[in-house]
C-alpha cells in the first residue's frame, strides 16, 4: 500500500496548475463575472484539449494520454480550484466517442436531471434537450437551461453517472481547498482590535474545521479514484460537496462584510459549489446508496 501521490502524479497536478494559472487567472474569472453573460473561451478550450485534459483516459494509440482515473481526478481538482468555466466533465466523457471532443474542437454538454450546463455554447448535446428554457443561473459563471422532461443522459459510457459524480467531487475538493486558503490569507492580513483576526480563536477554529473537511474529503475522493467503487464514489461526493459548500460559507464569514460584496471572489466559489451539488442525483442519491450499503450482505 502506498496511498500517496506518485512523483508523476505530483508533476501532472503541478503542470495543470501552471497551465491554468497562466491561462485562466483571476482577471479572466472576473471578466466572466463582471462583464457577463459569460461566453465559452474556445481558444482556451482548444488549449485544454491540446494539454490532454479531455483525452486523459483515451489510449495513447487513439491520440489520448493513456492515464487513469486518479490522474483525471487530480486534473479536475485543479480545474475546480480556479473555477475553470465550461462543460468540462461532459466533454471529458465524450472524448473518444464524439469527434473533436478530445482535442477541444467540439464542446459537449449533457442533460443531467432537469438541468443542462452550457447548452447554448455546446456543439453537441447528450440527451434530449428539446424545449429547454434558459433559467437565471445563480452562478454568474455557469449558464443553465431547464428541460421539461427530466432525463439523465450524461453520455454513452455506462459509468457516466459514476464518473460525473467522481469528477464533480474532485472539482468540489479543489474549490474547498482554495476557499480554505483564501480564508487563511484574509485572516492573516486583515487587522481588527489591533491584531490579525486570525489570532482570534473564533476565526482559527473556523479555518481549522475548513481544513479538516478538505483533508477528510481528499482521502475519500482520491480513494474513490483508485477503486472506482460506487459506494466509495458516493462517500467521496457527499464529503466533497459538504467541504465545498461549507468551506465557501465559512470563507465568506471570515471575510466579513467584504465577503458579501460582488467584487469579492468568495460568492463565486459558493455559487459554483451549489451548482455542482445538483449533478448526477446529488446528495439524496449518495446518502441512499450509502445507507443501503450498510445492509449489503445482511439477510
Amino acid at each position: 500500500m502506498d496511498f500517496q501521490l506518485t512523483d508523476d502524479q505530483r508533476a501532472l497536478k503541478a503542470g495543470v496548475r501552471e497551465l491554468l494559472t497562466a491561462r485562466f487567472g483571476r482577471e479572466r474569472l472576473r471578466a466572466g463575472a463582471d462583464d457577463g453573460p459569460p461566453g465559452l473561451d474556445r481558444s482556451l478550450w482548444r488549449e485544454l484539449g491540446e494539454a490532454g485534459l479531455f483525452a486523459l483516459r483515451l489510449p495513447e494509440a487513439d491520440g489520448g494520454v493513456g492515464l487513469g482515473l486518479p490522474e483525471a481526478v487530480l486534473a479536475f481538482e485543479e480545474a475546480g480550484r480556479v473555477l475553470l468555466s465550461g462543460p468540462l466533465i461532459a466533454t471529458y466523457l465524450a472524448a473518444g466517442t464524439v469527434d473533436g471532443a478530445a482535442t477541444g474542437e467540439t464542446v459537449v454538454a449533457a442533460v443531467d436531471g432537469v438541468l443542462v450546463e452550457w447548452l447554448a455554447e455546446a456543439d453537441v448535446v447528450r440527451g434530449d434537450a428539446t424545449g429547454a428554457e434558459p433559467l437565471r443561473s445563480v452562478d454568474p459563471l455557469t449558464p443553465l437551461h431547464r428541460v421539461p422532461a427530466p432525463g439523465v443522459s450524461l453520455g454513452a459510457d455506462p459509468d457516466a453517472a459514476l464518473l460525473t459524480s467522481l469528477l464533480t467531487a474532485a472539482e468540489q475538493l479543489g474549490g474547498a481547498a482554495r476557499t480554505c486558503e483564501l480564508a487563511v490569507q484574509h485572516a492573516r492580513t486583515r487587522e481588527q482590535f489591533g491584531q490579525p483576526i486570525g489570532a482570534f480563536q473564533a476565526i482559527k477554529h473556523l479555518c481549522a474545521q475548513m481544513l479538516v473537511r478538505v483533508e477528510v474529503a481528499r482521502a475519500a475522493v482520491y480513494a474513490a479514484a483508485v477503486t472506482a467503487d460506487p459506494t466509495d464514489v458516493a462517500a467521496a461526493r457527499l464529503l466533497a460537496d459538504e467541504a465545498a459548500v461549507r468551506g465557501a460559507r465559512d470563507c465568506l464569514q471570515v471575510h466579513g462584510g467584504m465577503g458579501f460584496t460582488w467584487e469579492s471572489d468568495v460568492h463565486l466559489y459558493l455559487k459554483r459549489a451549489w451548482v455542482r451539488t445538483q449533478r448526477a442525483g446529488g446528495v439524496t442519491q449518495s446518502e441512499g446508496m450509502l445507507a443501503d450499503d450498510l445492509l449489503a450482505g445482511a439477510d
Partner: protein
Amino acid sequence: MDLAYTPEEEEFRARLREWLAKVLPSLPPKPSPDDWPGRRTYDLGWQRMLYDAGYAGLHWPVDAGGRGATPTQHLIYLEETEKAGAPYVGANFVGLLHAGPTIASEGSAEQRARWLPPVLRGEEVWCQGFSEPDAGSDLAALRTRAWRDGDDYVVSGSKIWTSHAEVADWCELLVRTDATAPRHRGISWLAMPMDAPGITVRPLRTLAGSAEFAEVFLDEVRIPVAHRVGAENDGWRVTMVTLSYERGTAFVGEVVACRRVLGELAREARKNGRWDDPALRRRLGRLNAEFRALWRLTQWNVSESQRTGGVPGVGGSVFKLRYSHTRQELYDAAAEVLGPEALDLGREWTLDRLSSLSYTIAAGTSQIQQNIVAERILGLPKGR
C-alpha cells in the same frame, strides 16, 4: 496512489490471521470491568502470547527489542486483531505506546535494559502521571515538585486521569525540578515505582459510572535520581519526542470497530422498524461516508509516515478532530435507533454513548487541536 497491499504485506496479514484463529479460542474468559487485578492478569497474559509469537512491540525499533515493523504492517496488525475480536492493548497501553517508546528513544542503555523487556514480555504495567487538577490542556503548568536529596528526588503533588494506577508497577511521571526556570524548561521525566511509600491512589468515578481513572497523591515519595530519563529539566522535550511520533495508527482498531457498529445499527433499525424513517437512513448513510473516509485518511496518513519513516506530524490532529466528533455522532445515532432502549444501561451502545463523550476532551481537547491545526498547519498567528 496505490491502495493494494504488497505480497509481503498480504503474507504478514495471512500469517497473523492464521495465528489469531489458532490462539483466540484458548483465551481465558474476559474479567469483569471492575475487576482490576483480573484485567491486569488478562491483559498481561495476552501480551505474553504476543511476545511468544513474535508480535510484541511490533512498531518498536529492533534495537529496543521490537520488531521494527513498517507503519503499514502495524496498520494491518491493528485491523486484523480488531476484526478477529482479539483483546485490546488495555493495561499495556502506556508501556507499549508511551513510556516504552520514550525510554527506547531517550533512555540510557541500563534504563532500556531494565524497563523495556518486561513491557514486551507482559510482566510489568505502566501508568501515566502527567495531568494535574490545575494542569490539563495547559500541561506545562504542572506543579508536582521534586527536590534533590542525595541520590533521590523527593516528590510531592497530585496527578489525575491516571488509568490502571491501582494495578501499575511503574508510573511515567512529569515533575517540576526547577520552579524558577521558564515553565517548559523546569520539568523532568521520572519512572516512579508504584509501591513506593507516600503514594495514595483514589479511583475516580466517571459519568459512565465506572472507575476508569484514578487520582494519584504523592506525599514525599522518594524516587532514585537514576530513574530520571533524559537530562534534568529536559522532561518536556523527552515527553514530546514520543507524543509527536505519530504514525497515523492511533485509532485504527477503533475505526474498524465503529464501522462494524454502524452495520449493526442498520440491522437493528431494520429489525425494530426505524429503518423505514428516511431521515434515519440518511443519517446512517452519512455516517457510512464519514467512517469510510476516516479509514481512507488512516491509510493516507500511514502511507505518509511509511514514506517519511515516521514524522513528527500534526496530521494526527486533523484525524482526531473529525474522528472524535464522528464517534459521538455514531452513538447519538445509536440512541435514535434504540429509541426508549437508549435509556437502558444494560445496552452496550448506551455505555458506549457515555464513554464517547470523553473523546473530544482526552489527549488534547478539540479546541486545543483546532488551535494546533490553525497555528502549525495553516500558519495563523498565535494569540487568544
